[in-house]
C-alpha cells in the first residue's frame, strides 16, 4: 500500500514537472477572476464573483494537449455586491456552502482550435454534483513580467444549467443558465 502511494506520488510529481511549465495562479496579486453572470428576469445581467479560490496549471504552447488546470473555489466567498443576496446565494437554495464549501474544476482534456484558442474539458464540482463542462478558452499572452518572473494569462467562458448542479430555486424562465467567465494569470514556478 505504501509503495503504491509512493509510486502514485512520484508519477504525479513527474507528470507535473515532465514537460509543460507549471504555473501558480496569481491569487496573491489578484490577477485572476472567477466571475459569473445570470439573467435577471430576462431584462438584464446580474454579475457576481468568487473572491477566494486557488489553483495551478501547467502549460506549454508547443504541447498544448498536455496542459492542465486545477482550481478550488471557496463557495462562501460569493460576492454579488449585496450582502442580503449573497446570504441567500450561500444558503441551501443555491450554493449550500455549509455542506459544500468548495467547488472545484479539474481539467481532463485540451483540444486546440485556431490561433490561441482551445477547448478545455474538465469536471466541475459544484453543490456536491460533478459534471463535465467545456470551457472555451484562449491564451491572452505570456512573457516576462517587470519583476523578474514569467507569466501566462488565459480567459475562458462556459455556461451550465443551475438545475444540472442540483440548484432548483426558481429564478424565472430566463434565469436557468449561469455563465462563468474566468480569467487566470499564472506565475511560472
Amino acid at each position, binding site marked *: 500500500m505504501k509503495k503504491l502511494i509512493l509510486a502514485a506520488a512520484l508519477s504525479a510529481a513527474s507528470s507535473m514537472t515532465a514537460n509543460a511549465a507549471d504555473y501558480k495562479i496569481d491569487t496573491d496579486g489578484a490577477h485572476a477572476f472567477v466571475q459569473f453572470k445570470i439573467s435577471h428576469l430576462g431584462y438584464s445581467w446580474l454579475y457576481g464573483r468568487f473572491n477566494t479560490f486557488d489553483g495551478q496549471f501547467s502549460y506549454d504552447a508547443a504541447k498544448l494537449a498536455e496542459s492542465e488546470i486545477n482550481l478550488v473555489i471557496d463557495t462562501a466567498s460569493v460576492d454579488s455586491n449585496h450582502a442580503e443576496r449573497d*446570504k441567500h446565494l450561500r444558503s441551501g437554495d443555491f450554493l449550500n456552502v455549509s455542506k459544500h464549501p468548495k467547488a472545484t474544476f479539474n481539467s481532463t482534456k485540451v483540444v486546440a482550435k485556431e490561433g490561441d484558442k482551445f477547448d478545455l474539458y474538465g469536471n466541475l464540482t459544484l453543490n456536491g454534483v460533478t459534471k463535465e463542462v467545456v470551457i472555451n478558452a484562449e491564451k491572452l499572452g505570456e512573457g516576462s513580467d517587470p519583476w523578474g518572473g514569467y507569466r501566462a494569462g488565459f480567459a475562458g467562458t462556459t455556461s451550465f444549467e443551475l438545475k444540472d448542479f442540483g440548484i432548483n430555486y426558481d429564478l424565472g424562465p430566463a434565469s436557468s443558465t449561469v455563465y462563468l467567465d474566468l480569467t487566470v494569470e499564472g506565475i511560472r514556478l
Partner: protein
Amino acid sequence: MLTNSSSQYGIISVSLHWLVALSIYSLFALGYWMVDLTYYSSWYRTAPYWHKSVGILLFGVVVFRLLWRCYTTTPSPVASHSVIEKRLAKLTHNLLYLLMLLIMLSGYLISTADGRPISVFGWFNVPGFGEIFPQQADRAGLVHKYLAYFIIALSLLHALAALKHHFIDKDFTLKRMFGRSAR
C-alpha cells in the same frame, strides 16, 4: 391614569406592553413566512421591506419603553406571588427585554452588512456601517433566527404564567396588565 402607581400600571405602560407584544408576534409571523417566498411572489420585496421598517420603528418603541420603565414607578409584584414566582417573573421580563434588543440588533446587522442603509417605509434611512465582523450577514442571520424562536417560546411561557395566575390562582396579575387595580 396615565402613569404607574406602586400597585397599578398606567395607560402608557399597558399600551407599550401590548403594542410591543403584538408587534413581536406580527414580525415573527411575517419573518417566518417571508423567508420562504418564491422569487416571483409579489410579496418577495414588500414583506422584507415591511419587516425591516416595523423592526426599526419597534426599536424606537422599545427604547422609549425601557426609558419609561427607568424613570417611572414600577408596580410591586402582586403580594400573593411566591418568592420563586417573583424571581422567575423578574428573570423572564429581563430576558425578554434582552432578547428583543439582540434580535433587533442582529436584524440590523444582516441588512447593513454591505453598508446599505435600511429604509423605513421610505420615510427615512437608518445608515449601515458595513461589515463589522466576517460573514456578518450569515452569522447575524443565525442569531436573529434562533433568538426569534427563543423569544416566542419564552413569551408563550410568560403568557402561560399569566393565565395560570388568572385561572388557577385567581389573582389580578393579568387584569393588572389591562390597567386594572386590585379592587
